[in-house]
């Protein structure tokens, strides 16, 4: 087994443990590269049938190309797709006195309201007991401290100061009512592993990851995809996967450098994640 086989085997093992352990499981799906690897691994784990719904938290700031991809993939993979928008926040009604958006608010606030709170709303409606997420340790230092099975309390809080032990592939699967578990099968994967795997398995991904000419004549590509107002492309000529991999092996820029909400203040990610962000 090479490194990718090993990562795949471990992720499949985790997905199967999750499916066994929880009766009401859901997989958030952003259509990004990691998300699509998760879809692929789910197909592998369950012999072609994904036995849980897939959830897209739509911030309404989605790139149009991503929405197109969403429709394509829904049919291609036969997904049980849930699309969730925090309508109240966008419309400025209910508990919101004002419409929340990037035009008027800072990125940490918008991310919290349109992603985390939207997720909370869906969780309250559907009562999921576990969420399968595509986070990886190498994305940011707080994710580097995560567990494969990570409990969140009823307020969605992550008790990072007292995480349960997890070893020998024995996971935290019992929860109190109202709590849920974040199942994180991609923790061990590095960004370059994701690309190597996409290349090896030929996994479809949105074309925005590949370089294309910008208005200034230079070429750009997206390394990480989020809301369009706060997600910037990087200058790159990588127009296929092997070029992306080559690029990653020498780059010194962190993957999420183009994601504004991470850098808004000191330890912005810790604060976001402690409150339930993925």
């Amino acid at each position, binding site marked *: *087994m*090479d*490194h*990718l*086989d*090993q990562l*795949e*085997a471990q992720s499949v*093992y985790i997905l*199967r*443990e999750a499916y*066994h352990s929880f009766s009401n499981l859901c997989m958030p799906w952003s259509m990004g590269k990691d998300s699509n690897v998760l879809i692929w691994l789910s197909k*592998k784990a*369950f*012999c072609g049938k994904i036995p849980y719904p897939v959830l897209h938290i739509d911030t309404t700031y989605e790139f149009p190309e991503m929405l197109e991809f969403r429709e394509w993939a829904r049919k291609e993979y036969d997904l049980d797709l849930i699309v969730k928008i925090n309508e109240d926040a966008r419309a400025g009604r209910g508990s919101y006195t004002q419409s929340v958006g990037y035009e008027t608010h800072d990125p940490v606030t918008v991310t919290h309201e349109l992603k985390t709170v939207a997720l909370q709303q869906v969780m309250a409606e559907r009562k999921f007991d576990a969420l399968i997420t595509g986070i990886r*340790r190498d994305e940011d*230092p*707080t994710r*580097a*401290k995560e567990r494969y099975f990570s409990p969140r309390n009823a307020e969605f809080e992550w008790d*990072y*100061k007292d*995480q*349960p*032990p*997890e*070893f*020998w592939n*024995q996971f*935290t699967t*019992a*929860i109190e009512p109202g709590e849920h578990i974040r199942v994180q099968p991609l923790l*061990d994967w590095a960004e370059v592993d994701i690309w*190597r795997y996409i290349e090896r398995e030929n996994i479809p991904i949105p074309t925005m990851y590949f370089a294309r000419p910008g208005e200034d004549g*230079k070429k*750009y590509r997206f390394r990480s995809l989020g809301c369009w107002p*706060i997600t*910037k*492309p*990087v*200058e*790159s*000529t990588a127009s296929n996967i*092997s070029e992306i*991999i*080559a*690029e990653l*092996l*020498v*780059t*010194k*820029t*962190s993957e999420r*450098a*183009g994601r*504004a909400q991470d*850098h808004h203040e*000191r*330890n912005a990610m*810790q604060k976001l994640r402690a409150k339930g962000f993925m």
Partner: protein
Amino acid sequence: MQTTLEPTKVPTSDISLPTSQKLRIVIVGHVDHGKSTLIGRLFHDTNSLPEGKVEQIRKASELEGMEFEFAFLLDALLEEQAQNITIDTTQLPFRTEKREYVIIDAPGHKEFLKNMVTGAASADAAILLIDANEGIQEQSKRHAYLLSLLGIRQIVVAVNKMDLVGYRQERFEKVRSDYTEFLGKLGIVPQHFVPMSAKLGLNITQASPELAWHKGPAILEALEQFQISAPPDDLPLRFVLQDIYRFDERRILAGRIETGSLQVGQEIVFWPDGKSSRVKSIEEWNAPEPPTSALVGESVAITLEEQIFVERGDIGSAPDHGPAEGREIHASLFWLQNDPLPLNVPFTLKLGTQSVEARLVEITRVLDSSTLEPLAGNPGIIHKNEVADVRIRARKPIAFDRHDRISETGRFVIVTGKRIGGGGIIREAEYQDEKRLAGAAENLTWTVSPVTRESRAENFGHRGAVLWLTGLSGSGKSTLATGLEYHLHRRGIFSYILDGDNLRHGLCANLGFSAEDRSENIRRAGETARLMAEAGLVVICSLISPFRADRDNVRKICQRDGIPFAEVFINAPLDVCEARDPRGLYKKARAGEIKEFTGITSPYEAPLAPELELRTAEHTLDNTLLDLTHFAVELSRIPEPQIAEELARGAGI
């Protein structure tokens, strides 16, 4: 760190690395000895930090009023930075020209041992780091011990903060000889001892002039010598079953090949039950063609030729070299949770995908894992951060291996409440094939293990027994029997009443009241009671049974088969019984309407040495019933001489 929203420039190149497995290294040792600093240094000095990271760490250090702290690369939580301590373990990918690594930082504070274990358990190799100035401390020892339990054999010792001891070789040699001696007791032989300074970056990536007397490798060179620790290829098959899927007409068994390999067409036996079938197919989504074999480490889905009853938790093996199976395991245990683990309190044991209720039935010894000294006395309980040798008994049989034979199925965790509280490795296991080699088993076919009286008792939570209530008509046998049955039932003890009158309606309908028939009546009742007790029930026999010889005969029947038997004499004087006369039988007997009525026209031979005598004329019914219930509960208790011994010692008796 990048705060600008302008596009960032990425250089391009065509370097590529082979996708060989990543070597996982954990850094452990006492709090504050410099583990996180070493990792930060390693990243920095090999030019592995992302752009802007150094600047970010500098800012954070300034905000905390510190000099530049390399440790902040790992200690990214605000709480960690404020206290300058690692709380939770971190894993970071790292690569050199030679290969790729995952570096695992572990906290050194005693409070966070659970996080240290979480980080270290998956490592191929470890760096044990010691502050040259402070020398060997509590966690230097405890962490070493845990590494040995976690099965991590490749170890390098880093002697850090050499700058604080003037780079003196004697100091280094002192640490080396002290620690070598301690590690020797654990069977650990480090590959190298490396003197270094994480803070100043000495002996990290290359030899430093300040430490020129050191002839061995620098840290990075030592890392490059570690090997991936994969399970050996020649281990027998262990297929750990996770689930059974029925998404379509197929019945798919999903699981992982922990060791060995699996071929389509081969026979596979599932443990602990020993049912066997053949592998019909290996299912793989999107595969160009279906695979015919699967190798160690793979998560697979298979179908079987015959539909046998298998379930999550089962371990599949080839017909030869199956795992051990049984209810009891001997293990070494480490305990991580605040609440201690006492004897005899049920918990959940998880081994592979098996999950079973179990409890400690013996604590052979408890070690202070920081000194390796056994604790004095016999505590009967395991506290946080202690390690112990124990005997565990599960509610039902499990399949397992000896840890030194197959570690993947030779280790387990203990779950109390909703969290993992500790882990253990199995020290002893009796294998069928070893028994066979020793000539113990003639029979080469694998048979289903018999359901024994002990295993039934374990399932019921008590053993079967016969309580023989004897006494005059009207002495209170039936009342006590029904009361007793009710109380036992309430306690979850399975019981049943055999009543003399009732038996005469069926089993003994052809018998009269001659001495001979009375004997036969008692014999049949006794044999029936024995069978029912054998099946695991507490049988309450309520018969006048006036003759000693008949009762002794029943006692013999039971004792011959090891069934606990108790003769309970329900003693009330004849005049009291006659006064009670609940069914008017005495009156009829006196009137001569009933022949051979015990006590009137036929003798009653009182027991000479009954196990229990209840004088119903002298005590209230409630009290008598209470005595009888206590007695019955004790009689049905599964004997645990070891536990009794331990408890007696623990209580200082």
